[in-house]
């Protein structure tokens, strides 16, 4: 696992992809930070966390699109799959690498918080922590979905688009739920809503149910990725 993680980290930072990802993330959140916090003169960061949901739907698939598609295209997966390693190790090594790049991006929020604290002198640490946790969990779910998309195809563009569609569907669950009239289905769909759950975090509420929900989504997608690799052997 360590070997795969290190290789992916190196690949992220020897190609422009990680830099572009981080830069876009910083610019986007930086804009909302300046407009929403500095100019508005507020230390309330919930809005800043809420706006990042949309950009993550687009950005994270770009981070994960290469992970398995490229291996398949370049036939390097043959080295991975014939090496004495467990499939979970392969998937988890890649997952971890994408997570670290994401964490580096997320780290900018700590600077935002410090700036606000320095300017205003007070900041709700608990709310900030809740927000960060929510963002982290959302990233975990989106990245696992992106990796799953990437294991399905050897074309990176297709992989990115499929990943985006997955994220979009998770986002759209709300819209779908709103149009469903059958009460039980509606409530099931609503409980699956990513945005509602994430939004809850941005208001400073840490719901254990939501924590488990996001962790489960991440686990399920990673598990499916392993199954696809496993199944490919049998194809």
């Amino acid at each position, binding site marked *: 696992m*360590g*070997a*795969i993680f*290190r*290789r992916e980290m*190196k*690949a992220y930072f*020897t*190609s422009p992809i990680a830099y572009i990802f981080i830069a876009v993330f910083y610019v986007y959140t930086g804009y909302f930070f300046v407009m929403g916090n500095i100019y508005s003169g507020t230390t309330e960061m919930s809005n800043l966390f809420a706006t990042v949901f949309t950009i993550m739907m687009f950005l994270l698939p770009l981070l994960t699109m290469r992970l398995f598609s490229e291996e398949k295209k*370049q*036939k*390097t*997966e*043959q*080295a*991975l*799959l*014939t*090496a*004495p*390693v*467990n499939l979970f190790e392969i998937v988890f090594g890649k997952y971890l690498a994408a997570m670290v790049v994401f964490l580096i991006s997320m780290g900018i929020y700590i600077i935002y918080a410090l700036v606000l604290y320095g300017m205003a002198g007070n900041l709700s640490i608990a709310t900030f922590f809740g927000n960060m946790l929510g963002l982290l969990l959302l990233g975990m779910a989106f990245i696992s979905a992106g990796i799953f998309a990437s294991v399905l195809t050897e074309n990176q563009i297709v992989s990115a688009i499929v990943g985006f569609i997955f994220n979009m569907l998770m986002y759209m669950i709300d819209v779908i739920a709103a149009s469903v009239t059958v009460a039980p289905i509606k409530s099931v769909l609503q409980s699956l809503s990513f945005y509602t759950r994430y939004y809850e975090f941005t208001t400073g509420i840490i719901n254990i149910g939501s924590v488990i929900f996001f962790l489960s989504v991440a686990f399920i997608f990673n598990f499916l990725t392993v199954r696809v690799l496993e199944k*490919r*052997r*049998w*194809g």
Partner: protein
Amino acid sequence: MIEVKNLTKHYGQKKAVNDLSFTVNDGEILGFLGPNGAGKSTTMNILTGYISSTEGQALINGVDILEEPTKAKKEIGYLPELPPLYLDMTVREYLNFIYDLKKCKLPRKAHLEDICALVKITDVYDRIIKNLSKGYKQRVGMAQALVGNPPILILDEPTVGLDPMQIIEIRTLIKKLGKKHTVILSSHILSEIQATCDRIIIIDHGTIVADDTTENLTKLVTNDNKLIVRIDGPKEEVEKMIKGISGVVTVRADMEREPGIFEYDIEVAEGKDIRRELFKRVADRSWYILGMKNTELTLEDIFLKITMGEKVVLSNEKASEKAVEELDKMSEENSEEKESEE
């Protein structure tokens, strides 16, 4: 030791490998010979755990590759048809990655240096793989298979894309490796397999058509009864003269190789040697022999020869039986085709 029992692999309707059984003993160099699409790569991919078999079993040193893949994979170094190289890495980074990936316990620096010296890539150690030539890439692929010093090496067409010098180097290397490792290598080139392997398995359409020592199969190739002779003399008369020699079955004038000089394909009855008689008769008529050679059998000829059930020395009787069965099947199919055409 590798034991393969009744291995079958379907790709949808198509049977890529059909009921393959063979054993490779420790320290043996086994050559897999067959035309493209015969099932060589598929078999190798199954042995290395890259894909699974539909039926049957593959045991690597007694460990089933499907049941305990991690344990079995530890025993194998694999060079696939296309070397699995990360083009954005340097050779150093790549081999270190493979070293970590295989969870190798040998002293890292010394081990990797040894391998590089062995496959002669020390001078490109710090270059990015993308920029290497095909021959070097192939050798980096070879190095990758050797990391961890696995007892079994499986090499899928290891000399493809190399220049003649490199081919000879790689062959020598494989022979050297064969002293300490069990090696399976595949090729569609007969002479290559002949040069390196102790034993040859010929497969076609996913089935074994021959399984014998290189020596025996080589005999089969050289015990040939076709001659190609280039004679300076009047074409019709030469043909008539050759036909007159006892033991000649057919004569056919080939192309005009030099102005007025033809090459003649002569088929001789089994066991007859007409070369001396031919020389004498040509000399008597004041013509000249400008060249004489045995036709080299191509892989296709060997297939034909084996599947035609000629007097082939086969230690594996089952294989020849199978071959005959297959031939029957083929002729049936042919006649069916003809019928449908009508």
